[in-house]
């Protein structure tokens, strides 16, 4: 860190011990190369060419040594690899388009004026004085969509955030792979699709980002990143260390290891097909292990998962044979996520709610799957003391196919949220819980809590 006094050229009195402590405290916070790379991509700046560059550049900048990096000469825009949607290039296209259009109009008006023998100032002609800058580009902001949307639309960055697997598959033209079975220790993924601006060669590229959460009892929560992209794009820089070819389930995979600037081991698995390329990447810090990454790669490359639609159809077929009354998602009249209109961006805690009579059910990702789900509950209304303490204890689900089959599912790990933290909301009580849905399909859900009720139709997807 640079000398603060040098920067601020101010005199003041402070205990040296406190000054040192304050500086040490500030120095604890360093952005990771991955974060830096994402922001650079968002801004349309030069991507960091290796994972250590950003940190090194950062430390140079803090020490004031930026001379060497001042006003860098960047490669031409079209020569840059397509990594993420670039608003600047989109803006530039708009501006170039508008300027071009304005120039054509200007020439046309001039010609008309010449032919008419008028010596008028072309700028006074209608249409000429209009600003060539298109409004959409000038007003782009980084707003967060607060209302859950059934049909996702990209934000100004071309990103579909916090969407479901089905939504991702509807957007992306290549097969989106998911593990047939999520390895133990990994959470269900957050899914984001990044859409590129239109390409000169036609169409767009799409990049699917999945973050599988990894939790350990004594280690910070980490994540494993799975990237999927069509063959035209660049997935990102692989670790620059040892490269080892490996075959998983008949698929040739490149294993690349390395370390970042802080010395943390990095590991990536990369493979490509005619339709897409794939990368599984993580920092090997507890609880993330090489074994876990390998398990995830194998799970993604199981024959089922490599052709997900076929696999899904096969599972549906099996289900049809076993349970003749299975209903497809299309035929299921699901209740829309109609709860409180807040939702925050992926990697924190997206929240989709179903609102009932004083009782709401919330999920993190807007999708319920077979197996254990985290379900949050909000209550609005009068409750007895017992209800206040206990929260919902069972959820009754009825198969929505006319069979009338009904099950009571026990809610586990119901934990009450401290209501002192809900001082002015309409919500009077909130709980978190875990609930296991045994079968995929279209289910009617009914939950009671004192006088409060929730009834909704949900589709439980295969996990």
């Amino acid at each position, binding site marked *: 860190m*640079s000398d*603060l*006094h*040098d*920067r*601020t*050229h*101010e*005199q*003041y009195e402070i*205990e040296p*011990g*406190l*000054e040192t*402590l*304050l500086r*040490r*405290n*500030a120095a*604890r*916070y360093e*952005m990771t190369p991955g*974060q830096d790379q994402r*922001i*650079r991509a968002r*801004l*349309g*700046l*030069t991507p960091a060419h290796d994972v250590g560059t950003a940190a090194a550049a*950062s430390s*140079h*900048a*803090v*020490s004031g040594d*930026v*001379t060497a*990096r*001042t*006003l*860098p000469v*960047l490669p031409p825009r079209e020569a840059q690899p397509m990594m993420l949607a670039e608003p600047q290039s989109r803006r530039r296209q708009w501006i170039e388009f508008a300027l071009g259009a304005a120039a054509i109009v200007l020439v046309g008006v001039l010609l008309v004026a010449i032919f008419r023998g008028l010596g008028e100032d072309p700028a006074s002609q209608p249409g000429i004085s209009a600003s060539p800058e298109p409004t959409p580009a000038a007003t782009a902001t*980084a707003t967060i969509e607060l209302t859950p949307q059934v049909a996702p639309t990209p934000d100004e960055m071309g990103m579909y955030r916090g969407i479901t697997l089905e939504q991702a598959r509807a957007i992306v033209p290549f097969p989106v792979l998911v593990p047939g079975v999520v390895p133990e220790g990994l959470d269900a993924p957050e899914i984001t699709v990044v859409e590129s601006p239109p390409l000169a060669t036609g169409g767009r590229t799409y990049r699917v980002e999945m973050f599988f*959460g990894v*939790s350990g009892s*004594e*280690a*910070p929560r980490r994540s494993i990143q799975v990237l999927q992209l069509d063959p035209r794009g660049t997935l990102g820089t692989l670790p620059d260390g040892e490269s080892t070819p490996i075959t998983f389930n008949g698929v040739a995979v490149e294993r690349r290891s390395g370390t970042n600037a802080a010395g943390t081991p990095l590991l990536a698995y990369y493979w490509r097909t005619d339709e897409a390329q794939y990368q599984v990447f993580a920092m090997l810090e507890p609880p993330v292990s090489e074994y876990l990454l390998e398990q995830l790669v194998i799970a993604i490359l199981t024959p089922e998962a490599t052709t997900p639609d076929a696999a899904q159809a096969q599972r549906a077929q099996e289900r049809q044979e076993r349970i003749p009354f299975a209903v497809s998602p299309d035929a299921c009249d699901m209740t829309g996520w109609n709860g409180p209109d*807040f939702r*925050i*961006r992926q*990697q*924190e805690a997206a929240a989709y709610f179903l609102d009932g009579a004083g009782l709401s059910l*919330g999920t*993190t990702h807007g999708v319920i799957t077979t197996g254990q789900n985290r379900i949050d509950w909000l209550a609005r209304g009068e409750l007895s003391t017992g209800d206040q303490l206990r929260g919902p204890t069972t959820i009754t689900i009825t198969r929505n196919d006319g069979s009338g089959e009904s099950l009571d599912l026990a809610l586990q790990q119901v934990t009450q*949220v401290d209501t002192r*933290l*809900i001082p002015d*909301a309409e*919500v009077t009580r909130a709980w*978190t819980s875990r609930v296991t849905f045994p079968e995929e399909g279209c289910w009617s859900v009914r939950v009671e809590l004192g006088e409060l009720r929730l009834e909704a139709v949900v589709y439980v997807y295969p996990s």
Partner: protein
Amino acid sequence: VVHHAANIQTGADLPERGGEAVADEALVAAAKRDQRAFEALYTRYVPRVYRYARARVTSDVAAADIVSETMLDALEGLERFDPASGTFAGWLFTIAARRIVDRQRRRGRLLRVLPRVWEPDATREDALDAIDASDDIARLQQQLRRLPAQDRDIVLLRYNAELSSAEIGQVLGMKAGAVRVRLMRTLQRLARELNEELPQRQDQEREQ
């Protein structure tokens, strides 16, 4: 007041922004002509914006988001930046502070409803504290949390964002003199409270 004259460090006459070979104004002018030149400003300020944001929010991800939004706002609004109204650093951190407040407002609403949603973040913070924060740092952070919000912000803008009093005033809408007074008082308070907790230990460290 616990601190002693011998322990007080007085800043000498110090050069203006001596560490930075190219002035912000030149970089801003270049970036206005060609947005690609924004790279230099990005490189210069991203670590400081991150340190400031990270100290004010609860997760690495949130801090990175704020950095991203701040830099995007700066890039898109560069034309509107007027050097006559203050420094680029002051302008940039005004954006960052606004972004943080926006985020805290949104987050506050959600926290009121579902505080447990942030368990993973809390776990991470605890673990980080356990792993790489010394007792002194943990104690300092505890004291910082006890400060009134604006006093804490002044300290963070000073030490994490590395702003001058005038720039802090630009961010917070205060006069530079008022910032200086508040900073001095806050630092004295911090020193007093920290020394009250561990006077012996700090004396030993100084002697070494």
